[in-house]
């Protein structure tokens, strides 16, 4: 099973732990206390063969190769912790004999035909172990199970499976999807999905972690097959014949091993491995991407990937088809009447510069707005805001945080002073209690959800879920609170009031580290249990229980997402959550703090690096004369002092004539902003629109000039994940056609407007940032080399800040502020609009789907957006799965298929964000916004639903291959159940 302590230990500096002394093969060595013997031996340069142990997964104990003698007894080195004075022998005749027998057993399960195996890339753990042990022959026994290729992304070949159980460990205890296990009762045993279902009809979520950790070619990415090897593009039947013939004549495999080693070396000339960071959500998964030319062979996360270890989700592992989509923009396009024509870069940039300059001169710089992309790099965000401020002369610059997490930033600025997560995801794993507010973590941030599920399953961490939707995490929760939509603030304040009423507040923390408690306490008075029950619909017992759980926990983390922020009171609710953490002293210690779960890969960084209307890089205010002076000196220009327009206000400003031009980078505003019709009208009306994009998106279709941009794999730079973790991404290959990296394009525009920038690499941009923004003073590409990362603020000497507020809060006096949140009544349902439409992500798609719709496999699993409706509501409305409905709001209408589901309840409906046509949700959303952050209240959406009559094909919107149909078939277990293997009659258990 996963040994969490070992995993945590593994990442630590050897200098920071105590040591014990061992005698290994007659030699004295010092190793860190508590470490597994196997790791200690490896790190001391003593080779011990193994194929089932993995640093992220811990000891599995299935391969039996790592036996050593400790004080004369045979033990598995993977599961034996070191202790002082241990006498270890790794090469005795008994050890050698046991290992040989173990390898013989493994090789009965796996046919070595490495030269024509796509896993033979120099890193096949079985191949390397066979070679290292000097094995010269094998006795392979075929298993009577066919290859399962029913999943769109990976295959399972039982005949090559060595039953090491890594995939089981990964699925059960690492990402904790609980789909895969080994059925030891079968003859021969095999890995099974659910209750031995085909993978394509199982509850597998296609996260691909099983394929990542498989040490052989048993579970393999389809994108590797026939591509990785020089001679592997062979039909399976031909391969079978060749292998059969050669293996029959074989008396000694050493020559085959030699040829396959040579061939593996040759492969390395055509396969490139590039470290990158995932471009989807903000968990910040890092991995190596394997490419052959422009072909993406596979994504391989590593144990040293700081945010994710070996975990990925379906999008990060398999959702990369968009990079090589034939629909990529490859040349600049200029509008000519009702169509676009291709143009040279010179012509396009010249036109952009000329028109922006004309508008600036005629209407002033504030007549122009700039939107920076949240999937661009930090360096690109920095240049986008520098273009707006230093070249155009406006603070009208914003990014997609406005649509999602700006209210969270507001709430944290008000109370603790830094608009970012208080600690790392590791803190949320360590906490005694985690409360998620409005976060469908398992679908929106699946790798983070895996960490929470692991902490719950293996360590008994407590979990409270506050959400309108009974999503997957509810199944893991100790307490589920489901308030009426938009009333979370009342729940939070009622919990806080109950804590105060019971005298459970942390008096010492409040007195020493906060101000304004009395005003806060007074404002809590109306939030009685009765009031909360009436307004939120949450029974008072649940509020009391939540307060009690917080009181009893030594450390509490609050994770909150768009279910909280996308309401009129988004800023207020996040403030209330932060207040609650202050009230209970849950800041500044490991396992505590507030964690806004950011949405886009670099939405945190795009804000951090200054693409905000009120802040320069590092959250330094534009209306602070001293700050402005610093940047004016650095940039050599006079800077505007008035805070600019937010992205949502820019739409209003176009319609009322204040804004005449927009430069939108990597943001599909038509689909992303609320009230699609209004946004469309604004973009039709704006005098000049530049869109910088990968694709001809709905927004780009309104443009006057479209500039083709590079994808993340096609450029260097850095991202900041939700933890404030800065990580490098490296260029894997060039952009297609004439497309360019955003930073290059922005520089071309700036220079055409007279800027005179001379950046030749993003590293130079980061160096400039480090010179001006205090939070990034110690950030450099050198310190971020490979998988290294830094969590800002980073001091000049490179010391970073994984956990905030350990000594002081980010206010002049170092004390946190209780801020009294204001209660804003949400939009409620009416007689006409009697249902409530919740909306958000689905696991497989990313937001509006511009990237994920282009993945064939994802399209296959989720081919359309659909309305989920509860069985009771469906019955009431006369609806069945497969019907189509017309959903109307005060603003617009949507047509979508129906799926009756127990993932929604009462009069609540759910639709994914990924619809782009008649099913695009923002045709329904209106103009209500959080008055502070100006974030649209996307989730306050009363609607009516009526069945669409007439002729259309009635079919379930989700195919049978979608995991949602099968989740009830999951079989939960801890570990691989190796004891069942040991108890089989055909297993000669090694006696220690």
């Amino acid at each position: 099973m996963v040994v969490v302590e070992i995993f945590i230990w593994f990442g630590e500096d050897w200098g920071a732990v105590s040591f014990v002394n061992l005698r290994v093969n007659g030699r004295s060595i010092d190793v860190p206390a508590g470490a597994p013997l196997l790791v200690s031996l490896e790190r001391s340069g003593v080779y011990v063969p193994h194929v089932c142990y993995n640093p992220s997964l811990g000891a599995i104990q299935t391969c039996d190769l790592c036996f050593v003698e400790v004080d004369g007894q045979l033990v598995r080195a993977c599961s034996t912790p070191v202790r002082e004075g241990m006498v270890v022998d790794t090469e005795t005749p008994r050890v050698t004999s046991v290992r040989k027998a173990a390898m013989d057993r493994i090789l009965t399960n796996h046919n070595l035909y490495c030269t024509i195996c796509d896993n033979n890339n120099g890193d096949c753990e079985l191949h390397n172990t066979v070679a290292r042990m000097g094995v010269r022959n094998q006795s392979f026994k075929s298993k009577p199970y066919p290859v399962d290729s029913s999943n769109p992304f990976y295959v399972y070949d039982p005949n090559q499976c060595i039953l090491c159980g890594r995939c089981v460990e990964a699925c059960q205890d690492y990402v904790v999807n609980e789909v895969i296990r080994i059925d030891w009762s079968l003859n021969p045993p095999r890995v099974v999905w659910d209750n031995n279902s085909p993978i394509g009809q199982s509850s597998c979520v296609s996260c691909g972690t099983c394929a990542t950790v498989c040490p052989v070619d048993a579970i393999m990415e389809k994108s590797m097959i026939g591509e990785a090897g020089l001679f592997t593009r062979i039909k399976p039947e031909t391969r079978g014949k060749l292998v059969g013939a050669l293996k029959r004549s074989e008396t000694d495999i050493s020559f085959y091993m030699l040829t396959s080693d040579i061939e593996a070396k040759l492969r390395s000339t055509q396969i490139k491995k590039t470290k990158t960071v995932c471009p989807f959500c903000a968990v910040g998964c890092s991995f190596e991407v394997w490419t052959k030319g422009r072909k993406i062979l596979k994504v391989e996360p590593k144990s040293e990937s700081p945010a994710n270890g070996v975990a990925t989700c379906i999008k990060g592992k398999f959702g990369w088809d968009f990079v090589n989509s034939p629909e990529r923009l490859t040349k600049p396009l200029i509008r000519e009447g009702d169509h676009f024509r291709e143009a040279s870069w010179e012509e396009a940039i010249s036109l952009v510069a000329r028109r922006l300059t004309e508008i600036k001169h005629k209407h002033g710089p504030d007549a122009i707005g700039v939107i920076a992309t949240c999937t661009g790099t930090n360096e690109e965000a920095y240049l986008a805001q520098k273009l707006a401020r230093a070249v155009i002369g406006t603070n009208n610059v914003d990014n997609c945080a406005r649509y999602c997490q700006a209210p969270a930033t507001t709430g944290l600025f008000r109370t603790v002073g830094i608009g970012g997560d208080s600690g790392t995801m590791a803190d949320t794993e360590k906490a005694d209690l985690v409360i998620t507010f409005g976060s469908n973590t398992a679908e929106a941030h699946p790798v983070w959800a895996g960490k929470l599920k692991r902490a719950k399953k293996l360590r008994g961490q407590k979990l409270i879920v506050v959400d309108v939707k009974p999503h997957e995490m509810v199944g893991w929760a100790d307490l589920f609170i489901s308030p009426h939509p938009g009333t979370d603030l009342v729940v939070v304040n009622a919990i806080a009031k109950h804590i105060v009423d019971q005298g459970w507040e942390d008096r010492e923390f409040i007195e020493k580290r906060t101000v304004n408690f009395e005003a806060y306490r007074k404002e809590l008075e109306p939030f009685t249990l009765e009031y909360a029950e009436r307004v939120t619909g949450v029974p008072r017992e649940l509020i009391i229980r939540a307060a009690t759980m917080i009181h009893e926990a030594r450390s509490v983390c609050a994770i909150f997402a768009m279910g909280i922020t996308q309401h009129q009171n988004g800023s207020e609710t996040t403030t209330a959550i932060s207040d609650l953490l202050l009230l209970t002293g849950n800041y500044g210690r490991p396992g505590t703090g507030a964690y806004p779960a950011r949405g886009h890969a670099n939405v945190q960084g795009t804000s951090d690096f200054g693409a905000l209307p009120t802040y320069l890089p590092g959250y330094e205010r534009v209306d602070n004369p001293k700050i402005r002076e610093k940047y004016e000196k650095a940039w050599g220009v006079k800077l505007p002092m008035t805070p600019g327009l937010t992205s949502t206000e820019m739409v209003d400003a176009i319609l009322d004539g204040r804004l005449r031009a927009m430069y939108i980078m990597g943001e599909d505003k038509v689909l992303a902003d609320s009230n699609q019709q209004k946004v469309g009208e604004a973009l039709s009306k704006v005098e000049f629109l530049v869109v910088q994009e990968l694709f001809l998106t709905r927004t780009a279709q309104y443009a006057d000039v479209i500039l083709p941009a590079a994808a993340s794999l096609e450029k260097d730079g850095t991202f900041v994940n939700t933890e404030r973790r800065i990580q490098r991404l490296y260029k894997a290959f060039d952009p297609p056609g004439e497309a360019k990296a955003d930073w290059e394009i922005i520089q071309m525009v700036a220079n055409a407007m007279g800027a005179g920038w001379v950046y030749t690499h993003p590293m130079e941009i980061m160096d400039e940032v480090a010179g001006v923004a205090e939070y990034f003073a110690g950030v450099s590409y050198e310190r971020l080399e490979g998988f290294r990362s830094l969590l800002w603020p980073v001091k000049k000497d490179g010391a970073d800040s994984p956990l905030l507020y350990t000594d002081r809060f980010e206010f002049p006096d170092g004390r946190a502020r209780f801020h009294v949140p204001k209660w804003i009544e949400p939009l409620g349902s009416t007689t006409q609009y009697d249902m409530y439409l919740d909306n958000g992500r689905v696991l497989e798609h990313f937001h509006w789907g511009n990237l994920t719709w282009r993945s064939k496999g994802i399209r296959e699993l989720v081919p359309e957006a659909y309305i989920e409706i509860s069985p009771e509501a469906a019955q009431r409305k006369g609806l069945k799965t497969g019907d189509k409905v017309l959903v109307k709001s005060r603003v617009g209408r949507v047509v979508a298929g129906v799926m009756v589901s127990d993932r929604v309840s009462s009069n609540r409906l759910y639709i994914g964000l990924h619809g782009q046509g008649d099913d695009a949700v923002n045709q329904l959303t209106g103009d209500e916004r959080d008055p502070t952050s100006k974030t649209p209240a996307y989730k306050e959406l009363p609607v009516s639903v009526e069945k669409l009559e007439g002729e259309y094909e009635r079919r379930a919107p989700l195919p049978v291959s979608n995991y949602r149909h099968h989740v009830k078939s999951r079989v939960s277990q801890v570990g691989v159940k190796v004891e069942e293997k040991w108890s089989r009659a055909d297993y000669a258990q090694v006696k220690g």
Partner: protein
Amino acid sequence: MAKPTARVERKAEEPTLDLDTLVKQFVSRQEAFNEFMDVIQLLHERGILSALKAALERYEDLLGVLADWLNSMGTQSPANLLELVNTLTKANIRGLSSIISAASKGAATSGNKQPPSLEGLLKSLEEDDVKRGLWVVIQVLREIGSSSLE
């Protein structure tokens, strides 16, 4: 008022070959280019290019034929090949170079004389150099024999 449009009029693809670069590369590596072209010409004249092209086009078929042949009864080629390779890998033929050198010398010497009589051959067996040579050959044969049993 800009209406949204997805219509793009694309120019016909222009050749992407940069002739200047190609000429420069050719001039700087002219000798190598000439030799390369000679090789190509020879491969073409001997029909090897055509054979290779055909083999690549019929790659799967050829592999299939090969696999069938390997699978047919009585074919010992892979086993023999592997046996030979493994035997050569294991055989410890130290000083092979000096033996080859000595053999060459002996061959050269013998080429200058009349063939010996049977009596002469028997007398030669008494010479120390001949005894040592025979002993080396016997040792090599012994190693090959014992390796083949493993």
